[in-house]
């Protein structure tokens, strides 16, 4: 870990005022310190936001929830309003990490969790995300946990968060405070970026922009599930995960929101695939067609080829569970 200066922010406004080149906010710190120890991330200054008043979950008048960026994963998962209205989110959170990490990891921080790519984590190897222009050691290397959708020839990393997958299925909105004092509301669908030629840029946040809240619309109708496929029974990152919210009405799918972890640089969602499902009677044939659509552009890189059939089978099984087929 390279040394840094440390300040404790007294307010969100004060925090963003401290921000700038080489500055990082620290909340739970479970991912940032992990990476700083390995000198994958080397901020000059940490602004401690952990004691800001952003730790509440509030019910809005429109029926939705506003979740403070500092709400720990554990508290969010166990919140009765989340359990009742957004069980997919509780399930996703509980499938992630460990009890200890969930007690520390924050909602805002988890959205920004960085990839678990082995090569990103090791400064002895090339990584365009860590060091733009150095190359991608994962391509042609060992890439079991890597992306099959939306990757580029610069980066095939995946987003590791479970929570963010559920947030994407739930059409969450990320609320931020910018350095100039402006607030922004960013749909989660616009929040993340594919790697393209700049895998070091993972989202649309501007330098120094602070996530203050995450908003969920009112609880969605229909069945919800989160299914995570992994190598250990617990305490392992997803190989493939599915967050699903599907409503069946009068024998037909009335709405479907399906987000995927482990497949891409961001929590993946395919609105065209969802549109194929809506208005149709649930059936295995329909689900197979949906899976074909989802994976039409999928490409394996060797050790992760298995993710294509795995994603296909998992999606179909999830849709059957969600619709009772």
């Amino acid at each position: 870990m390279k040394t840094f200066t440390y300040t404790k922010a007294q307010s969100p406004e004060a925090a963003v005022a401290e921000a700038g080149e080489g500055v990082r906010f620290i909340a739970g710190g479970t991912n940032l310190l992990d990476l700083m120890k390995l000198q994958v991330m080397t901020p000059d200054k940490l602004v401690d936001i952990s004691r800001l008043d952003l730790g509440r979950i509030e019910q809005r008048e429109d029926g939705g929830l506003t979740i403070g960026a500092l709400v720990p994963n554990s508290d969010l998962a166990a919140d009765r309003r989340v359990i009742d209205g957004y069980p997919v989110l509780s399930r996703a959170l509980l499938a992630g990490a460990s009890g200890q990490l969930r007690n520390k990891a924050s909602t805002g921080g988890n959205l920004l969790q960085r990839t678990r790519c082995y090569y990103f984590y090791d400064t002895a190897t090339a990584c365009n995300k860590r060091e733009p222009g150095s190359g991608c050691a994962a391509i042609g290397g060992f890439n079991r946990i890597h992306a099959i959708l939306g990757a580029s020839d610069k980066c095939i990393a995946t987003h590791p968060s479970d929570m963010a997958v559920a947030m994407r299925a739930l059409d969450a909105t990320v609320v931020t405070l910018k350095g100039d004092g402006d607030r922004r509301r960013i749909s989660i669908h616009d929040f993340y970026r594919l790697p393209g030629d700049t895998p070091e840029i993972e989202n649309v946040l501007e330098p120094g922009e602070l996530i203050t809240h995450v908003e969920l619309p009112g609880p969605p109708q229909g069945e919800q599930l989160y299914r995570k496929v992994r190598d250990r029974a617990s305490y392992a990152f997803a190989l493939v995960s599915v967050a699903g919210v599907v409503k069946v009405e009068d024998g037909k799918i009335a709405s479907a929101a399906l987000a995927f972890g482990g497949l891409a640089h961001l929590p993946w969602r395919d609105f065209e695939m969802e549109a194929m499902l809506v208005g149709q009677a649930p059936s295995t044939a329909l689900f197979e067609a949906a899976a074909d659509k989802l994976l039409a552009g999928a490409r394996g890189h060797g050790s992760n080829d298995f993710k294509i059939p795995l994603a296909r089978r998992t999606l179909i099984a999830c849709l059957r569970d969600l619709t009772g087929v």
Partner: protein
Amino acid sequence: MHFTINGQAYDADLDIRTSLLDLCREHLGLTGSKKGCDHGQCGACTMLVNGRRINSCLTLAVMHQDDEIVTIEGLGTPENLHPMQDAFVRHDGYQCGYCTPGQICSAVGMLDEVKKGWPSHVSGDLTSAALSDEEISERMSGNICRCSAYPNIVDAISEVAGLTPAEREVAGA
């Protein structure tokens, strides 16, 4: 910097980079908390901070000057063991002993989470946090034991939690 650990006040002159774990191990002589991976991947460093179990390796000491910190040394002593420590001894919930303080702190924190009604990944019903062997195993999976005392750890915790044999065998979803 000032800290309150196990109810005792400490002062330390620290490099800003010092983790809560290294503060205890290298500066305060509180070596009961262990460093197994230094990256939140094993749980050996688990402490209770404001009553919650966390990985003390993945947090900066400087961020905890206002917190109530409890380490394994604060739970009990060899002469006066905490019930969880005593159960670990009787059930052989350890072998080499290196992950053990973290397991015990984690178990104490975990039972408190259950008391608060927090569900887990294996809870069939998210609104009821009934404990069972399966629940204990899932909830304790952030503490790796390479010797693998897992079955004995589950025995020890289920005893402290007062589970009946029938309760222990309940499967989740």
